[in-house]
């Protein structure tokens, strides 16, 4: 059983300079209160691994605006002009990764694989600096695993064991990131008694979750 923390107490676990995986897709499924609490701490030099940086004022966009992020690994920043400007100015070092490759790299980190071979990116800028490996006559890029100090997960329901479920398109990167963070902090919309979420309804087993954030 996990005693839930306030968003502030959870944010206080994150040291300056940490690497964070943060769930969400254009802010949908992102842990907003945790993000707010990290912004409020004023820490800097974070590495963020996420699909995107949403837009200014929303989700990960708030961390970008606050100047908290020095490194970013993402697939798309096109809807956040601040992220683009900070990348161009050099304030944020940004690695852009195809979305399908990004989620597989996170999964590989989480499930103990040394990498995966994907055809995505072959013959494009994405292949620069990467090993090409031929399997059964076809070329693939070797893409390496990603892990992070923390995974910040936005969920719908949790129980006090830490089991999580997600709603509709708010799943996105959350279930795989919950495997790949050394410390996993989940911000659910509701926490229900153990037994309310049936075994077949669990998307992230509670054993992966280190901390739950209380309802806002």
């Amino acid at each position, binding site marked *: 059983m996990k005693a839930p923390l306030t968003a502030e107490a959870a944010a206080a676990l994150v040291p300056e300079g940490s690497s964070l995986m943060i769930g969400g897709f254009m802010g*949908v499924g992102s842990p907003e209160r945790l993000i707010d609490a990290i912004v409020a701490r004023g820490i800097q030099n974070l590495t963020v691994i996420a699909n995107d940086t949403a837009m200014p004022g929303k989700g990960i966009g708030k961390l970008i605006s606050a100047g908290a992020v020095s490194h970013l690994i993402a697939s798309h920043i*096109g809807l956040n002009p601040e992220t*683009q400007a900070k990348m161009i100015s050099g304030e944020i070092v940004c690695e852009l990764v195809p979305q399908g490759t990004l989620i597989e790299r996170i999964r590989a980190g989480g499930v103990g694989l040394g990498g995966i071979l994907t055809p*995505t990116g072959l013959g*494009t800028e994405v292949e620069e600096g990467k090993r090409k490996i031929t399997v059964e006559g076809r070329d693939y890029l070797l893409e390496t695993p990603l892990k992070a100090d923390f995974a910040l997960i936005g969920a719908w329901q949790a129980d006090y064991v830490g089991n999580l479920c997600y*709603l*509709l398109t708010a799943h996105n990167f959350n279930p795989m990131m919950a495997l790949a963070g050394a410390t996993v902090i989940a911000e659910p919309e509701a926490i229900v008694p153990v037994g309310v979420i049936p075994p077949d309804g669990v998307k992230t087993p509670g054993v992966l979750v280190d901390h739950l954030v209380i309802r806002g």
Partner: protein
Amino acid sequence: MDAKELIARRVAREIRPGMLVNLGIGLPSMVANYVPANSGVFFQAENGVIGLGARPPEGMEDPHLTDAGGGFVTAVPGAASIDSAMSFGLIRGGHLDVTVLGGLQVDEAGRLANWKVPGRMVPGMGGAMDLVTGAARVIVAMQHSAKGVAKIVPECSLPLTSTRRIDLIITELAVIEPTAAGLVLREIAPGVTLDEIHSQTTARLTIADDLREMPLG
């Protein structure tokens, strides 16, 4: 009919009952308007839904249900929520029957560039590279040229999205099929002349023996 509607209507004819289809944001997303609701087509949004439905009425939006552009959508009966690993598993694994994407350039080898204009537009490739690499069929839906500059070119000058030869280019002027032998002009839009097409195309085009007028509707 404006150019975008014409393109969307023609693309819709490529979509057959029961297919799984991904529509890019912008012009490609308009294609859904011209696919019959009873066709059994499932639209996928790569952020995690199979069975994307129309925009909900005002006040009935759910913040947990959006398309890949972040816009509110609904889900049709029989829809499924999936996470990003499953979503791109479907895409990369060849389970997606058709993807319709916008384009900046397509070249004579049928290669698409649509994700970056160095020094000017660096949004990241999002799901585009996986979609173009993995979908069973890739249709590029775009305006034929951009402010007088050809987009169908001998060789892409912009960074490629994939080296995979895409399957069809549909513009407001023409339908062009990339083949191993180069680009084949298959259809001309109503009222458009061959000269107009050539004047807005720098790539070499072969005229199909059975060249026809673009069917719409």
